[in-house]
């Protein structure tokens, strides 16, 4: 904050100007993140790839379609119930590739390490990456290591980038939703966010909840075999609400959800009630949302339920035609409300 502001007698006759500083909310995956991308990054970088706002870009090299993506991972604590930063780093990039219908092939990884980190912790993270990569069927092709002074980073940050093959007839994008499409979720909402929160200092609640962090490429392969898919997205930061709003905007359609159909574990429901969160906004790391034609929905749902990470798959809504893109929810008691993107950082309410 500026120290030169004279607060005594200072008045504010006009609205607060747009923020001149990056705040944590810009990394929340919600509206502030979108503003940052649309107002700062895209004008400078241009719309280099035609689908820059999907989870992966698709580039054509000599007739071969390659999906390309990158993701940086920062999480506190490094180890949380059901996962760790290493598994997160592998699954995040594998899933981003798989969400455009690509078969993930190879990943790179870059480590930013704060001096003082023990080898034991680093080794556990690396072993977890090895196991997750093996599970996903990808290999780690290249890497980089930087060590920074104590205090210049928080223990360990990991960046991964990845490439995958996209078959010539595959066309999956957030812009492809169609009227009457059925919306399918692969399992329960909010497990990751609440599991990580429960492991954080200062939050005194205990739960047996595990993060859902998982590679979803095998699930997606099974789905693609079962029927045509229009849209795939993993509702990570910002939760399902933010992801569906992105799809509604990209496809210029309205999405209507049924509250009673949303799968939420009792532990997540209880934690959200206590903290004033909505499971629709809590992060997932091993879930996907799919938009499919109604006639294919049953087949795809069955195929999903036969896989490890799709057992809890459920139909949660549909696409309807309206004048403006939006996401609506039919509440359990029969009312309707709008579902907006996460505005900034998710904040626990006061009472």
């Amino acid at each position, binding site marked *: *904050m*500026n*120290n030169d*502001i004279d*607060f*005594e*007698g*200072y*008045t*504010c*006759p*006009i*609205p*607060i100007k*747009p*923020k001149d*500083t*990056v*705040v*944590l*909310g810009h990394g929340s995956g*919600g*509206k*502030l993140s979108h*503003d940052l991308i649309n107002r700062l990054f895209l004008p400078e970088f241009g719309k280099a790839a035609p689908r820059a706002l999907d989870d992966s870009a698709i580039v054509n090299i000599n007739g071969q379609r390659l999906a390309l993506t990158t993701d940086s991972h920062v999480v506190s604590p490094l180890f949380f119930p059901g996962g760790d930063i290493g598994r997160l780093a592998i699954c995040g990039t594998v899933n981003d590739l798989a969400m455009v219908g690509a078969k993930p092939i190879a990943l790179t990884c870059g480590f930013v390490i704060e001096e003082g980190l023990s080898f034991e912790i680093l080794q556990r993270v690396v072993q977890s990456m090895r196991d997750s990569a093996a599970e996903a069927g990808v290999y780690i092709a290249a890497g980089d290591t930087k060590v920074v002074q104590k205090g210049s980073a928080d223990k360990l940050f990991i960046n991964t980038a990845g490439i995958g093959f996209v078959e010539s007839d595959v066309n999956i994008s957030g812009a492809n939703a169609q009227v009457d499409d059925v919306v399918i979720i692969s399992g329960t909402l909010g497990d990751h966010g609440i599991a990580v929160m429960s492991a954080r200092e*200062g*939050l*005194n609640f205990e739960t047996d909840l595990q993060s859902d962090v998982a590679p979803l490429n095998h699930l997606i392969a099974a789905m693609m075999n079962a029927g045509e898919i229009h849209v795939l997205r993993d509702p990570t930061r910002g939760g399902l609400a933010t992801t569906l709003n992105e799809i509604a905007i990209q496809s210029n359609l309205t999405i209507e959800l049924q509250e009673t159909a949303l799968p939420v574990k*009792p532990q997540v*429901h*209880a934690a959200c*009630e206590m*903290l*004033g969160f909505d499971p629709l906004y809590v992060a997932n790391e091993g879930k996907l949302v799919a938009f499919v034609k109604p006639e294919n929905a049953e087949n795809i749902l069955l195929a999903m339920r036969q896989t490890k990470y799709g057992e809890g798959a459920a139909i949660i809504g549909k696409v309807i035609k309206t004048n*403006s893109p*939006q996401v609506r929810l*039919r*509440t*359990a*008691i*029969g*009312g*309707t*409300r*709008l*579902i*907006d993107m996460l*505005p*900034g*950082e998710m*904040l*626990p*309410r*006061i*009472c």
Partner: protein
Amino acid sequence: MKYVDEYRDPAQVKALLEEIGKAVTRPWTLMEICGGQTHAFLHHGLDDMLPGGIELVHGPGCPVCVTPLEQIDRALVIAARPDVIFTSYGDMLRVPGSTVDLFTVRAKGGDVRVVYSPLDALKIAKANPDKQVVFFAIGFETTAPPNAMAVLQAQKQNITNFSVLVSHVCVPPAMEAILNSKHNRVQAYLAAGHVCAVMGYHEYPPIAEKYKVPIVVTGFEPVDLLRGVLAAVKQLEAGKAEVENAYERIVTLEGNIPAQKVVNTVFQSVDRKWRGIGMIPLSGLGLRPEFASFDAETRFSVGKIVTQESPLCIAGEILQGLKKPPQCSVFGKECTPSSPIGAPMVSAEGACSAYYRYHREEVGT
């Protein structure tokens, strides 16, 4: 989930709506006091399901919304100091002061931390004896007991690097202020159930009697809310103005007496400015003289900071139920949850924020 699902039961909701429909013979205007109730009405889509004659206006019971601008500016000045760890309930971080918010202070290096309880702030103070730890003690009678408890504990444990920036407000004086307004439209109150859980409802009969308004203690789940509406409507239709408890599973007449004792030990009634409404005599709680050493306002000499609101924001009219958020010229345009001009757009409990999230289509943005 037990204690939640049974109060969101669609069959009970339907039955109550039908009963309300039968009871109503002409239009009535009810005010739900608490922002949590406003949020619940809109969250469940319940407001649109009520019979047409019943209008809900949204009360001043959002602690984040009514915390005065100058108190936020004081918080910003304190939080920016290098020797301070500033602790707060989460949703205060996004409330704009005159120039910035606590998020921005944090981004520029201020040590601003979200805590879930003021006792956590006390722990931070114990763990950081070389720092001044300040807790932003805001809210209604609901948050006053834990905040008072933190001060008592600090005194008992002789934690001298802990202080509180107090901006507590009390519901009954605001209810009277609204009824005294010449523009008042409120014909019955749905009183704030959680405030009553602490304070009881023995303060309300004189208000009901003096202003001839029914006051119904009301909860926060759909069935609770509709029971409150039904009781209020039945009273209005019968020409009664009584105090009634429709949240019996939580609230008793006398309230939580140990909690009240803690509050009365640490705090006393003071005049308090409400953001958007103005000064209401004896409507707030301030530290008693014997706890003055824990007052962050004096410790950091910020008491003189005085500010004025943006003239664009009609928070005052919103919080008094005179206007609804979509009637504001900047609602959904210059003023959104990610860039709020006024406090009711900030908190999940704020009326403007609730409208923006759930009812934006009405204003065609």
